[in-house]
């Protein structure tokens, strides 16, 4: 599996421990009830920690799905 996907899945699983691996890759604000603004902030903080780059917290509302976050990481993170 793609390393970035696996690392991002790991981040998601810490915030949403009840989701399966398959549910995580399809996760979005609309499909995961626990995904509120605080979960978003925690998720972005974890992503920053995991991928070692600074996420702009002001943009947390833009990242509404696993897919959109993965795309941003691939475009921005230094070792992604």
């Amino acid at each position, binding site marked *: 599996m793609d390393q970035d996907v696996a690392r991002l899945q790991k981040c998601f699983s*810490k915030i949403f421990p009840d989701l399966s691996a398959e549910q995580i890759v399809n996760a979005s604000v609309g499909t995961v009830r626990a995904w509120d603004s*605080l979960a978003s*902030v*925690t998720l972005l*903080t974890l992503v920053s*920690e995991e991928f070692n780059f600074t996420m702009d917290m002001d943009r947390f509302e833009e990242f509404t799905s696993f897919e959109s976050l993965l795309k941003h990481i691939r475009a921005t993170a230094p070792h992604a």
Partner: protein
Amino acid sequence: MKLADALDLSNRLNEHPTGATRVWLICGFTPLHLSTFFKAHAHLRLAEQSVEVITGRFGDLAGNIERAIEQPVGETAVVLEWTDFDPRLGLRGVGGWSVRALPDIEFEVKKRLAQFGSALDRLSQKSLIALSGPTLPLPPLAYTSAAQETAFELRLRAMTESFLAEAAQNRSIRILSQAALDVESPVGQRLDVGLELAAGFPYTLRHADAVADLLVQLLFPPQPKKGLITDLDDTLWHGLVGEDGVESVTWDLQHHAQHHGVYQQFLAALAERGILIGIASKNDPALAMQALERLDILIPPSALCPIELNWEPKSASVERILRAWNIGARDVVFVDDSPMERSEVQAAFPEITCFAFPGAASIWGLLLQLRGLFGKPEILAEDWLRASSIRANVRFQQEYSHPSSRDFLSNVCGTISIDFSKNPKDRRALELVNKTTQFNLNGRRYTEGEWLTHLSSKNSFLATLSYEDKFGSLGKIAVATGSCDGDVIRVRTWVMSCRAFSRRIEHHMLESLFTHFDASKIECEYKSTGRNGPFREFFEGFLDSVPASGILYLMKSDFAIKRPSLPHKTKEVTGGSGCRPSSEMLL
């Protein structure tokens, strides 16, 4: 700790939420990662016990304190930041940073401090509090350059320092050390502006982790070490007394040996507050004693006991010292400049904590480590007594073991004072319960919150026993607690200091419980811990068999037949039944 690790721990805790220790975390901002780190550190500190962190409402610190007063738990962490005093001191409020506004901000801070002080005082009647003063920098609202302080900023800091100093005098409030925080979280790396503006959480991850860790340490401190064994040559002093001579060993600036003097001074302060200090040195006994008795030494020989001076392996000396102190190696620190000696002692006592005596440049680090191991929240009356009591006990044991000492106990003029009041302010009882391992009914430990909850229950009792004889006072050395139901006493916890062994004080405790409560039966919640052999052996005398873990029963009539003679005078030092304590004794 990384946030990912803290979340993993939190998720594990959430799988087992029953029986969790509940702790309030009160702050005016969104607790977010601080709460996660706090829960994770508490979980680690409480040996994998589940922890539930209760948080309040955003922007309402005063209201959150009131909610904690209404729904108290045993332990509460309170985190103050500048915005709790006035929103203009943060970035989420834009009330104006005009020079003309500064006096009003100062006025608000003063008013809020008075309000928080009063509320915390009330909360401290119900809960142990860990309190953190402002840790974030003040915003750049002053008119000077960054290099220059303003009187305004200095006055704000002085007000909060004064507030914290006042709070620190309250025995139920522990103040987070800014110096310790500075080590873990540099001031310039604490504020996360992006997270503050986006989510109302102002801390960087590193800062949140450091604050949470220290708060947990304040609420659930580790048991401090009890004794320190030190070497002499090139440790307590500079030089080898056997080769250089008594007058040539040094510990002063003039001889570039000041760090040995600082070490002596530190040990003297430890001894004064009841830490046991022993000497283990391969040395000529006469010469070493002469050096220890020099008038300019900074730790008097009277503070050192035992003093082992011989040419045997160090581990043999350490073994005798531990026996005299009657404590385990895990409660002791060993300091020696020689790697070989440390290695030999460590091999013989794997649980002992060994430190190298360092060169001058590193003495500060050693003292900080020792402070961490021996530090405790407060000094109790028994701490001042402990060292002299240990020396008295050594004399007692020598006389007691002498074959000519027939009926020795009846001649020691012992007096037992037993106090049945449930005074939650008396920290000695809880301290004794949480650090005693040998004469211990079941090894049960309590957090301060659990202890207060137990004492406040209607049927609970607490018996605290003090002892003195012609050799000196041992202070408070035994505690029994549990509940009473009619004429049946249920003992949940019973401990006695090892200093009090061989005096039949445990028999006096049972006699006092039967008498005070007019009880016909005592039930003891016994559990073998692997280390509480002395308790097992004591109770075996009443059962005529080795007790198994479970409830042990003792009828008053059996006790009267099987107990030995009780040699000491007994008196109750305060009146009142433990079952129906007077209201001022309760929380």
